[in-house]
C-alpha cells in the first residue's frame, strides 16, 4: 500500500500549527478546525485501529475522515464536528472492512484449499508492529482490542463511541446513522459481552 500520509512538506516541527499559515478570513475557522483535529487525531487513529487492526488502513481512514469533514462540513457549527467526524470515520472503516472481506472472498475462490495456509495466518496482526509501541502498550489495551474484535461491528461501534469517545446517545445515533434505541441496544449487548470476555481483567476494578 502506498504511503498516503506522506511526511509533511517543510518539516513537521516548522509547520505544526497549520493555522498560522492561513489567510485572515478563514483563519478563525481553520484555527478551530486545527484545534479540533489535533485533539482527536490520536484517539481517532486508535479507534480506526480497533476496527481495522492494520496501521496503514487506520491512517488512511483517519486522513480520509479529516479531509471529508473539512470539505463537506467545515462550515457547520463546530459542536457538530465530532459526531460528523466519527460518522465519516466509521463509514470509512466499514468500507475498508467490506473491501477486505470482498478481496478475501474473491482470493479464496482462486486459492488452492490445500496449500497448507490457514486464514488466520493471512489476517493482520493485532496491532502495529513497532516494538517500542508494543512494549509500551499495556496488556489491558491488548485485551480490550481483542475483546472488541470479537464483537459484531455495530456493537463495537456503539461501545467505542459511547464509552471510549464519550459521545452521548444522540451523538452516537447520529454517528452510527441509527435510532437512539438501537444505540442503547447495541451498547447494552456490547457491555454484556465484554464483561464476559474481560472478566479477569476487570476483577480488580472499582
Amino acid at each position: 500500500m502506498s504511503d498516503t500520509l506522506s511526511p509533511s512538506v517543510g518539516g513537521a516541527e516548522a509547520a505544526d500549527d497549520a493555522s498560522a499559515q492561513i489567510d485572515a478570513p478563514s483563519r478563525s475557522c481553520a484555527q478551530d478546525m486545527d484545534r479540533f483535529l489535533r485533539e482527536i487525531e490520536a484517539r481517532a487513529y486508535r479507534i480506526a485501529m480497533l476496527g481495522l487492526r492494520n496501521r496503514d488502513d487506520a491512517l488512511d481512514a483517519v486522513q480520509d475522515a479529516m479531509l471529508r469533514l473539512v470539505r463537506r462540513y467545515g462550515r457547520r457549527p463546530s459542536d457538530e464536528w465530532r459526531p460528523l467526524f466519527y460518522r465519516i470515520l466509521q463509514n470509512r472503516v466499514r468500507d475498508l472492512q467490506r473491501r477486505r472481506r470482498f478481496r478475501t472472498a474473491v482470493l479464496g475462490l482462486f486459492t488452492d484449499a490445500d496449500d497448507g495456509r490457514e486464514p488466520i495466518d493471512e489476517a493482520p496482526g493485532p496491532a502495529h508492529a513497532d516494538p517500542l509501541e508494543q512494549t509500551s502498550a499495556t496488556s489491558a489495551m491488548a485485551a480490550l482490542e481483542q475483546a472488541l474484535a470479537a464483537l459484531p461491528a455495530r456493537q463495537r461501534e456503539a461501545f467505542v463511541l459511547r464509552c471510549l469517545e464519550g459521545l452521548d446517545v444522540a451523538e452516537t445515533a447520529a454517528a452510527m446513522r441509527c435510532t437512539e434505541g438501537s444505540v442503547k441496544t447495541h451498547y447494552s449487548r456490547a457491555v454484556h459481552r465484554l464483561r464476559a470476555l474481560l472478566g479477569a481483567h476487570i476483577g480488580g476494578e472499582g
Partner: protein
Amino acid sequence: MSEIHSDSARDAALERFARRAFADGVDAVDADTCARLASARRRAVAAAAGRGVDLRLPRLAPAPAWVAAGAAAALVVALAAVLRPGPDAPAGTDARVAQDLDVTPADGAPLEPIAPPDALASPADLELLAGGVPDVLDVLEEDLEFYAWLEQQPELAMDREGP
C-alpha cells in the same frame, strides 16, 4: 435490587477499565504515527482555508475486471446451487408445514405461499433466522449490509466498460 446494583457496578467497572486501557493505548501511539497524523491534519486545515491543497483522496486500487467478473460468476453459480430445489425436494412444502402445524384452512382451499422469497430481508425474518441470539442477528444484518454495499460498487459491476 442488589443484583441490579451489582450489575450496574460491574458495568461501571468495565467502563472504567476500558477507558483507562484506551487512554494508555492512545498515549502509546508511536512518534512516526503521530507525525503522519499531524501531516494529515495540516493538509485538512490548509484545505479548510482554501489554499488549493490537492484534495484527491487515496483510494485502494480497484479490483481488476477479471476478478470482479470471476467473483460475480462464482456468486451466481453458488446462489443457483443453493436456491435451486433438489430432485428430492417435496412439492407443496408450505402446505405440509401448515398441516404439521394444524393450520390448514377448514375449507381445504390451497394455501398461499407463506411469504415471497425476498421477504427474508425483513427484520422479523432476520430475528427468526437468528433464533433470538443477539449476536447472530447483528452478524446477519452485517451480511445484508455487505451485499447491499457490494451491489453499489461500480468498480465491481459486471457491465463495466473495458479499458
